[in-house]
């Protein structure tokens, strides 16, 4: 009787372990923080979004934060990246550590970068998300979407963001946008086209009080 019960338990555990799918439903988020020029002053808003996301993400999800500076296609720009453990208690510890790193980064930013390499950041994000094997992939662009490539860097080629949801957050209006609003719309439209041509879904979310819908879609 005990032997057969043991076999039953073993079969159940093997079935559970064998059929379990740990990546298909997990979320992968990569957030790019623009640190160029005056936009670096907006980082407090980014911190609130990161805190919201840390509260929302579940065990098994992946989260990465990187800055957008003059040359963003680099691992050095990654501020923090983690795939949360399956155990909730470990996940909570990881989230605390993550928050700590983000807080110290925000406190360390004094001066904005000279150039803005958004394309490089997106390529880095796409690469990271592919590696995580997450079922739902999000690239969050916390930027004014004004790209300013350093001389010698090549970024004018199609980007591959297939299967990714690219969400532009807090796209602030520049001084020049106020003179001619079409510049703002053209800028946003340009990025929408690039993302959609690269196989991704584009969304714009400027109201940071409506973060509930951030990871939907």
């Amino acid at each position, binding site marked *: *009787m*005990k032997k057969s*019960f043991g076999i039953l338990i073993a079969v*159940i555990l093997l079935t*559970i*372990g064998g*059929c*379990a*799918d*740990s990546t*298909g*439903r*997990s979320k992968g988020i990569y957030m790019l923080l623009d640190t160029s020029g005056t936009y670096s002053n907006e980082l407090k808003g980014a911190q609130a979004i990161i*805190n*919201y996301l*840390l*509260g929302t993400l*579940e*065990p*098994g*999800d992946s989260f990465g934060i990187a800055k957008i500076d003059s040359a963003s296609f680099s691992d050095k720009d990654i501020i923090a990246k983690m795939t*949360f453990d*399956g*155990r*909730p*208690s470990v*996940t*909570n510890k990881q*989230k*605390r550590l993550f*928050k700590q790193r983000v807080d110290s980064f925000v406190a360390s930013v004094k001066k904005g970068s000279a150039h803005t390499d958004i394309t490089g950041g997106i390529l880095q994000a796409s690469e990271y998300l592919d590696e995580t094997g997450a079922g739902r992939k999000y690239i969050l662009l916390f930027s004014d979407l004004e790209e300013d490539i350093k001389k010698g860097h090549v970024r004018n080629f199609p980007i591959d963001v297939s299967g990714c949801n690219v969400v532009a957050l807090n796209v602030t209006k520049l001084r020049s946008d106020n003179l001619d609003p079409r510049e703002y719309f053209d800028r946003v439209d340009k990025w929408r086209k690039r993302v959609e041509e690269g196989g991704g879904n584009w969304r714009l979310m400027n109201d940071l009080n409506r973060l509930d819908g951030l990871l939907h879609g």
Partner: protein
Amino acid sequence: MSFTQVFNIFPGSPLLSGMMVLVLAVVLFYLARTPAHKAIHSLSRLLQDCFRMMADSVLHVEERFEKRNKEVMLTAGAEAAERMIDREFQRVEAVVKRDLNGFPSLHRSLTDLVTRIDEDYRESAQVPQPSPDWVQAVDSLAQLESKGDKWPTNIMAEMHKTAVSQHKRTMEEYRHSVGSRHALLDKMRPHWQRVSQTLDQVGKTVKGLHERASILDKHMSEYEDIRKKTDKATRRLASSAMTQFCISAIVLVIAIGGAMINFNLIALPMSEMVGGGSYIGNFKTSDIAALVIILVELAMGLYLLESLRITRLFPLIGQMDDKMRVRMIWVTFSILLILASVESALAFMRDRIAADMQALRQTLAQAESPEAVNSWIPTIGQMVMGFILPFALTFVAIPLESFVQSSRTVIGAVTAAALRGVAFVLRLLADVTKYAGDFLVNLYDLLPFPLLRIEHWLRERRQMADVDQPDEMMINEGV
């Protein structure tokens, strides 16, 4: 050639064409009337017969179903009655063993008491005082003639003195003997009381047995009704099955509520063991693991109650020899105890994880964490619930058995009612088809009605001619 062109017999004159078509249609309908009527009647009869046959088949199935239901219900009822009677006999046996087993000693004790009382009674019997022997001598002296002598007076005086003293002594003896009798009777009182108590005890036992006997009589008469397959027994069993079905369904719903609470207690901490990010199909692995634990607990509960012979869902367990059954009881109880302890630990872990998550959320929201009041009370409460609920869920086996058994009868009754409903609808359709055929025939006759009218008129004329002709013939013959 289009459809309208076919009917355009006279081009340029649609009215004339229409009228021509109408006339042609009337003629055609008139000529084809008899075969058309036959066709409509045949079709309606065919459909009517089909529906009737289907209704008969359904009714036949319903009849068989009803019979089977009745058999199932009566068998289950007979089995239940047998169990009840068996149980009553066991009770009677227990009463007989407990109370009447000591009846010989009780009888002996009663006999001893009665003998002792009898002896005492005999001893206490009043013995009449012997009359004095000298009374006759007094009578003789009294009859002597007195001739002035004093001696008789003296003798009488002496005798009086003797009589008084003897009377005094006799009274003393009498009082003494009455006193000793009263003492004997006083000694008898506890014996009488004991006899009375013993008889009361016997009376109670006999009364209890009498009550059991009347209950047994009732069960036996019900059992006989079931064996005779009477309508009364069928109705009573159907009503009883419906009541059992409803009550057990309510209890099962309550048990499902308990299982859900149990599930919520262990689902979160299970993610610590099997991981919170993996899925099986559309469900979290931790949720499925928690559900499996609860289901294993339910299964163990079923086996435990089955081994205790409280339920009879698995005949194999009930048929096991007693040694094996006792082993099974201990094994299932041990597994239940281990699972209950695991659940209690998981409930504790759940409280810790929930508190940690709450603290993290507050840190992320950068809010002040409120002071926890009596934080151990919910923890202990959850642990106790985690321990108690698996045992409480064990008893689901009892309503489950009632539900399974009564559902056979109830589902059978509902299916029979549904079949009766289907048969009614089919019979209705058969009648509708029949009258629809008649209606179509009448509808058909609407178009060729002018020719039909003419035909009717001609037939009437012919009939009238046939009626007039014999009169004329009779007149001619008379002439």
